[in-house]
């Protein structure tokens, strides 16, 4: 769609991209900014930038990686601008709660209140990191980007990606220390690959 298309084709293609990626863009923005209103603002700004800069995308990387770079930059900028002009421009975008929210997830058996609570705790914890550290963790573990893709998405060298990733882990470790026991994690116990939590003896027994 990037080879000087007809205007109508361009708009149709842009809308298709928008529909395809909007939830994922919102998700990344939400993880980095931490609030619904900021995430909506970042999502809208990101797509506006995509619209204006799509011609600069040369197809040398995945479109999604290129898109992530825009989203991360917008999100980091958004965090820099407290009480930002960006937010003022989207007065119509309210921070929605309650009935305005739409849960896109399937409510499977794993989707328990406990899991939600732990998820909220982790989300709150990563909000205490700097936006750059937050971004690299989200892209790596939530979006599943490889190190090579992280280099492209964050416009960093491999060495910088690795060192930033290490710093992110150390920072998150500091934040999480002593906070996971209520969720059944044994401090210092090895974590199994499956993601099954090692529970304290008796934890979860009634």
């Amino acid at each position, binding site marked *: 769609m990037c080879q000087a*298309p*007809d*205007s*109508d084709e*361009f*708009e149709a293609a842009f809308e298709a991209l*928008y529909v395809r990626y*909007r*939830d994922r863009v*919102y*998700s990344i923005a*939400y993880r980095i900014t931490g609030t*619904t209103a900021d*995430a*909506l603002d970042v*999502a*809208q*700004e990101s*797509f*506006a930038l995509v*619209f*204006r*800069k*799509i*011609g*600069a995308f040369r197809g040398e990387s995945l479109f999604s990686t290129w898109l992530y770079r825009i989203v991360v930059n917008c999100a980091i900028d958004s965090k820099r601008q407290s009480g930002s002009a960006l937010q003022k421009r*989207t007065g*119509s*975008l*309210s921070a*929605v709660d309650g009935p*305005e*929210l*739409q*849960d*896109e*997830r399937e409510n499977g058996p794993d*989707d328990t209140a406990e*899991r*939600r609570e*732990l*998820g909220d705790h*982790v*989300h709150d914890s*990563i909000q205490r990191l700097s936006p750059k550290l937050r971004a690299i*963790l989200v892209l790596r*573990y*939530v979006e599943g980007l490889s190190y090579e893709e992280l280099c492209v998405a964050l416009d960093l060298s491999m060495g910088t990606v690795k*060192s930033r990733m*290490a*710093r992110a*882990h*150390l920072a*998150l*470790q500091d934040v*999480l220390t002593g906070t996971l026991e209520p969720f059944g*994690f044994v401090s210092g116990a*090895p*974590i199994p690959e499956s*993601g099954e939590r090692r529970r304290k003896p008796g934890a979860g027994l009634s």
Partner: protein
Amino acid sequence: MTTPSRDTVRLHRELLRAMPAPVVPLDLHRPAFLEGVYARATDVLATDLGPLLCEGLPRVTAPDLPEGGLCIEEPAGVVRAVESLMPGAPAPGWLWARIRDDLATAAPARTRLRRTRAVGLVAAAAVLLALVGSAFFRTHGGTPDTSRIVFRLDPRLGQAGDALMPLGR
């Protein structure tokens, strides 16, 4: 710099992967959100592009064009201007559609103004003719009443300037 242990890395990976997807607000799926995207993308109109468009508009709205004086094609100059500000972007059909809509909205007002101006010109010409006629009759022996031509301000021509309509003697 200290490196995190494997267990720490694994724990963080599992915790982050286990985070539920955030709840998506309905706003994100409303048409207004996409319109907001376009509105932001066209913020460029408030920058250098504004004057360029203004320069191009008289050519675009030439009265001999169809559709009430509105050009239905994207003018090359405007397209070039947009492309220079948004390098690599395709021809901005969306932008042109927006401009055309704005012009269409403004068109009735312009038409009224043009009509008023035309009436004003006719009225001014009539005044001029009356004055010339008056001078002619005075010079060439017209009736004495000619010098008492009465003019009345026509309220319908308020916007057309201070035109005067001759009512006769």
